[in-house]
């Protein structure tokens, strides 16, 4: 394995993207909440919200710095590890990649301005206006990069003549079949994950018996976000499933261990597969549910893996990742729903310690869910890198040095993974929110 460039390149891509995606996700989601908090603070003349926005922005800056770093790495690494693929992709899907850099640029400029102009404007609302380009820039960059990934799953907008790509239509390639469902799911899950992380921070402090109003306001604001976006996530997750059933049936079938094409298909949760007999043990089967997930009709016919030659099957372990994602999605929706019910019906205590604990656990679970979702998507595309056109094994670099690079980057990510949380914790411990509120640092 140490001398197989394909496997090693996959591993290195996995590590880099697995690391980047966490930072990218919060990079896309947190600006929205900063912007909302500042807006409420200005409108209600409540300096708690302003401080909230300030403290979030401070943490966000450090996360962005590491996000930019890992993003730059992946941007170059794609060419270093998958030169043949990038040569082909550059011809067809360069447009959104190119536009993504503009989105970064836009965001970077305004983030620089936003951070250093808290007290420079006479009217606070002018400062708030600066947060809008940050929100637009970060979500736009997620949008553009997601179209590239969508293109890898459902390539479109070109013809192949004698092995050469002709008749290239960049816009058709960008707005491919997989784009709408993927884009909406990626964006809402980014907002959802960020909301849960911010909520978990507030809940954590409340569990530590800090009872300042500041934390309660933070918790309530973010939990509303959690609820809205968890519902949206379930809806467009369902749409993603329907997309797969129609355009990438082998991925859905592999994720569901669904071998025979059949009507009234059952949804399978968990279980252990006997690979030779193709029998599932210990799984929970929900009749008709897969047909409903795929086509909204209990009797609909769902295509099974046996329709495809076995060498084109994606690895079957993606089943577990799919399950993890769905379980967590349900859990997050339930937690935020219960919180809101408790909050608005005075009979219950929305600061119930068990509920707060569930919220704290929700943050790492949401991140896990992001990872699981991406693994299911990317591994589920195997063995293709450009579905139907290019195989992963034909596009990797031929260099003998991938293993050394794998070690090098692993060391880098390990140090970043240790330093990043340490620094963030130290930053916020040095000056806790109560102290800052007392100092009246916040000027309205």
């Amino acid at each position, binding site marked *: 394995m140490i001398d197989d460039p394909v496997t090693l390149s996959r591993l290195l891509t996995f590590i880099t993207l697995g690391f980047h995606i966490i930072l990218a996700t919060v990079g896309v989601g947190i600006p929205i909440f900063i912007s909302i908090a500042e807006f409420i603070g200005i409108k209600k003349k409540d300096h708690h919200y302003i401080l909230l926005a300030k403290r979030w922005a*401070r943490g966000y*800056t450090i996360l*962005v*710095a*590491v996000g*930019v*770093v*890992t*993003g*730059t*790495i992946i*941007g170059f690494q794609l*060419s*270093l*590890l998958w*030169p043949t693929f*990038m*040569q*082909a*992709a*550059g*011809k*067809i899907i*360069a*447009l959104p*990649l*190119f*536009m993504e*850099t*503009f989105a*970064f*640029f*836009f965001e*970077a*400029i305004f*983030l*620089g*301005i936003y*951070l*250093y*102009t808290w007290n*420079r404007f006479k009217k606070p609302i002018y400062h708030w206006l600066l947060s809008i380009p940050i929100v637009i820039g970060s979500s736009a960059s997620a949008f553009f990069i997601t179209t590239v990934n969508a293109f890898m799953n459902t390539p479109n907008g070109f013809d192949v003549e004698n092995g050469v790509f*002709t008749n290239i239509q*960049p816009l058709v390639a960008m707005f491919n079949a997989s784009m709408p469902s993927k884009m909406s799911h990626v964006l809402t899950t980014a907002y959802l994950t960020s909301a849960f992380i911010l909520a978990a921070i507030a809940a954590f402090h409340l569990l530590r018996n800090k009872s300042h109003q500041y934390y309660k306001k933070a918790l309530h604001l973010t939990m509303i976000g959690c609820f809205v976006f968890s519902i949206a996530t379930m809806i467009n997750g369902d749409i993603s499933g329907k997309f797969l059933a129609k355009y990438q049936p082998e991925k859905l079938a592999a994720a569901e261990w669904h071998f025979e094409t059949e009507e009234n298909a059952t949804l399978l949760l968990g279980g252990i597969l006997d690979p030779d007999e193709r029998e599932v043990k210990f799984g929970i089967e929900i009749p008709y549910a897969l047909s409903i997930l795929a086509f909204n009709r209990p009797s609909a016919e769902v295509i099974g893996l046996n329709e495809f030659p076995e060498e084109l099957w994606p690895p079957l372990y993606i089943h577990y990742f799919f399950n993890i994602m769905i379980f967590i999605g349900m859990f997050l929706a339930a937690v935020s729903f219960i919180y809101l019910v408790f909050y608005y019906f005075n009979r219950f205590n929305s600061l119930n310690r068990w509920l707060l604990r569930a919220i704290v656990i929700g943050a790492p679970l949401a991140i896990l869910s992001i990872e699981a979702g991406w693994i299911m998507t990317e591994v589920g595309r195997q063995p293709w890198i450009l579905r139907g056109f290019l195989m992963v094994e034909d596009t990797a*670099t*031929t*260099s003998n*040095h*991938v293993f*050394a*690079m794998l070690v*090098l*980057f692993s060391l*880098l990510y390990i140090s*970043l993974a240790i*330093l*990043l949380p340490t620094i*963030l914790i*130290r*930053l916020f411990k040095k000056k806790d929110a109560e102290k800052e509120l007392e100092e009246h640092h916040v000027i309205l």
Partner: protein
Amino acid sequence: MIELIGITVLWIFLFGYLIIGSIDFGAGFYSFYAKITNKKHSIRQIIDRYLSPVWEVTNVFLVFFMIGLIGFFPDSAYYYGTALLVPGSVALVLLAIRGSFYAFANYGARESNIYLFLYGITGLLIPAALSTVLTISEGGFIVRTSGDVHLLLLELFVNPYSWIVVMLAIVSVLFISATFLTYYANKAKDKDALLLMRRFSMIWSGPTILLSFLVFLTLSTHNEAHFQAMLDESWIFLLSLVSFVLALWFIYKQKYLGLAFTFVCLQFGFAFFGYGYTHLPYILYPYITIFDNVTSPEMGITLIMAFIAGLFLLLPSLYLLLRLFLFNAEYVQGK
């Protein structure tokens, strides 16, 4: 047409990175220098005030160049991608260390000497690493044997031309950065910092011009055709020299420091565009030219349109950034 517009756009962005990146890289080094020699108060504040709002923008220039290169000339992704795995990865790790440690040092735990050291030293190593790509593009180090593309790393390592380019990159960074900080210190009305940075400008000016000549001369041993093309267009390089002399004169006299820095930009601008122009049509000797390896017209035109639309968004934003931080006397003076 597309190939010419494409290469021009890319070269402009690379030049932008060269100037802004050099200021940033050099500033990191001077900041570290000031820390260990305890010249803390004067120049470090100036450097912090300039760098804080713009550090992220610098990086985007590099990413932009890279993505643009793949977009306009996709085949270069194949050649450079295959050949540069090792040096490219090393440069990436350096960039990663620098970017994250800047944030850690500045926003997180203040005043850690290790962070500052890493930040300062990577500022010199990164330009060194990146400049070798220019050397490689001159040909002779990437070879194609039976369909496989290889980098001759050892040959690159023992090649005198490649080392001179590396040295030129390092001193240029220190020179460009020093001249900019001289100007910025002047605006901040900080006499101490001004004199210190002026001294550094003078110190590094000699090596910069000397190494530039050396690079020019050694190129003749390495890529005769390119050397000849540069001789044919020698007027561009003479303009570069004139700009250098003017810049140095103003800095020496401590007058018109903004203009002096503009002349430094012109000096590098003439040299850089002259170099790039005479390098054409090759992107990589002798495998990739802008004519044979340009992307399809459909993609090319769409990219150019996206670029123009993007500029309408970016130029006003950049203007706002510069107005609020660089050309705002109150901010610069720390009021």
